[in-house]
């Protein structure tokens, strides 16, 4: 194959320079800083620092509070990913079948996309407020002794609910466009081949949505790990007793509230490695099953 060869010039480098600059300034440099910091122990006032090798990592990984946060993050990410994907898929399939008023349904369902996570968190805060929160009152009325300030399950329920609600709209948009890209004649052919709509969904529609689902899974896990910070920060702040601490929130807590820069850096490095490993696993083992 013939390759196009441009004359050597600086212009291509100029074109990629802004992107490179962004990556270097906002990712590589902070990451390098974090790695460097993670080997240091600093006193509370920042007056003296000491190189401590892997002590920060040891302290991090073996501390019960970190393990608790890691456990919660795992459950939280799994729930948020599967619930938001599941609901979004259900809504997209139903909205795709609607003929009358279809665009109203679609617009309404997409709306939540425009809401920033902290705002979603604030809204959730109001709804679960013990004095004026409708959902708080509702759960107590129907006999659930609901108190997310004291009960760790209830607190987890609140953050999962808000995070899922916030993410469903994003997933909905992708699923809907995925559904609409399936040729109508393929659906019709399957109608002639298979009587049961449920079976048709799992044998034809769902496999054809696999590329969308895979993409969304990667996006959603990242969302659950990182972006839900805003929701947690505006609702539970990790309470009660660190039960709703995600790893990211704990990095922030220990670093900026607890002034333990070294420990917090070590945590963020571990988190980075975890997410990296998770993504590699997804591409390795799940993407194989995806038919593009």
């Amino acid at each position, binding site marked *: 194959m013939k390759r196009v060869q441009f004359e050597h010039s600086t212009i291509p480098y100029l074109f990629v320079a802004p992107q490179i600059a962004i990556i270097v300034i906002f990712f590589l440099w902070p990451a390098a800083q974090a790695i460097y910091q993670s080997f240091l122990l600093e006193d509370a006032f920042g007056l003296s620092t000491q190189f401590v090798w892997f002590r920060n990592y040891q302290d991090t990984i073996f501390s019960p509070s970190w393990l608790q946060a890691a456990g919660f993050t795992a459950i939280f990410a799994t729930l948020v990913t599967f619930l938001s994907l599941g609901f979004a898929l259900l809504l997209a399939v139903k909205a795709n079948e609607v003929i009358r008023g279809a665009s109203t349904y679609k617009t309404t369902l997409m709306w939540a996309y425009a809401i920033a996570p902290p705002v979603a968190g604030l809204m959730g805060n109001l709804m679960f407020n013990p004095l004026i929160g409708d959902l708080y009152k509702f759960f107590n009325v129907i006999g659930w002794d609901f108190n997310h300030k004291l009960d760790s399950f209830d607190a987890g329920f609140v953050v999962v609910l808000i995070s899922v609600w916030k993410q469903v709209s994003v997933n909905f948009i992708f699923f809907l466009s995925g559904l609409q890209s399936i040729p109508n004649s*393929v659906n019709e*052919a*399957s*109608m*002639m*081949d*298979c009587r*049961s709509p449920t079976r048709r969904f799992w*044998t034809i529609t769902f496999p054809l949505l696999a590329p969308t689902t895979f993409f969304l899974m990667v996006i959603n896990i990242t969302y659950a790990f990182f972006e839900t910070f805003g929701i947690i920060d505006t609702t539970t702040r990790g309470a009660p007793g660190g039960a709703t601490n995600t790893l990211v929130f704990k990095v922030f807590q220990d670093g900026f509230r607890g002034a333990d820069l070294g420990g917090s850096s070590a945590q963020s490095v571990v988190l980075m490695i975890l997410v990296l490993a998770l993504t590699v696993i997804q591409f390795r083992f799940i993407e194989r099953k995806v*038919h593009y």
Partner: protein
Amino acid sequence: MANVQLNGVRKTYPNGAIAVRGVDMTIDDGEFIVFVGPSGCGKSTLLRMIAGLEKITEGDIKIDDRQINDVSPADRDVAMVFQNYALYPHMTVRGNMSYGLKNRGMPKAEITKKVEEAASLLRIGDFLDRQPNQLSGGQRQRVAMGRAIVREPKVFLFDEPLSNLDAKLRVQMRIEIKRLQRRLNVTSIYVTHDQTEAMTLADRLAVINDGKIEQMGSPIELYKNPATLFVASFIGSPQVNRLPVTFDGQNLVNGDLVIPGFTGLPQKTRLVLGIRPDDLHQSGDGQFTLRVDIVEQHGADNLIYGALRGTEENDADDAEFCFKTDHSLLPALETTLQLGFDTERAMVFEQESGQRLL
């Protein structure tokens, strides 16, 4: 093996558009029926109603005397071949062909046997484990047919199955479809807008226009004896020549052109004289003088186009007359030819209604 009956079938879309306005038809066991008509005439809608992909607004459809109006597509025992093949992209050829059988709970061994039989019949045995995107257009078309064949349905439905293929392959597949249908002897309904396909495939042809059947009959019957101007112009290539005329009691008249030899036609109505290009012949005392405009050489035949001398201005579409002759006649442009025709073979239509009068 089944007969199909359509009784007063109508289709009105929710937005008020009427696609099919009352179709009655009986299709016999093993017959190959072609619905032909211009795009938007309702032929595909009619087929899709038989398939169960469109709701029937009025009337009923029966397969083997069983009413199927509200039967789901999968339970009608029909199989369809789509224009764009509609293969399941995530399944292999084998998967595509066995999907319908699997859903009907057929034992695995039997499925394998049937799929392999159909594959060898269609000569796609070597591709059974490939994905549809690794196949050429013609091969995909075969797989789509294979998917229909393995089902052993009562009725085959074809929705313009050849229009995505190139011209050469289309002719080849056309012959193959005909051969397969003969061999399997399954009642088939085939939709196309291509009149050559329609003529060559059909046992009987239904010419559809504006949601109604204009005429139904064997291809040669429709060619020789069209009931309306629409059928006359739709069937046959090159198109029938149409000359707007009036009748003065003895002759057909257009401007200075006077054509004798007609009787029993209404006077003072606008008529159309239709003559097939191959019914014209060169003759010294012929009725027409043709001024040669274009000569198309098709090898064995020449098509000579031109305007008739003496006629008044008419629609640009009908202004050109076509004369089909063999390759030996090659007149120079702008010269004139004296042409005649046998009045027995001329057709006269009423212009308003399009009905045949003679």
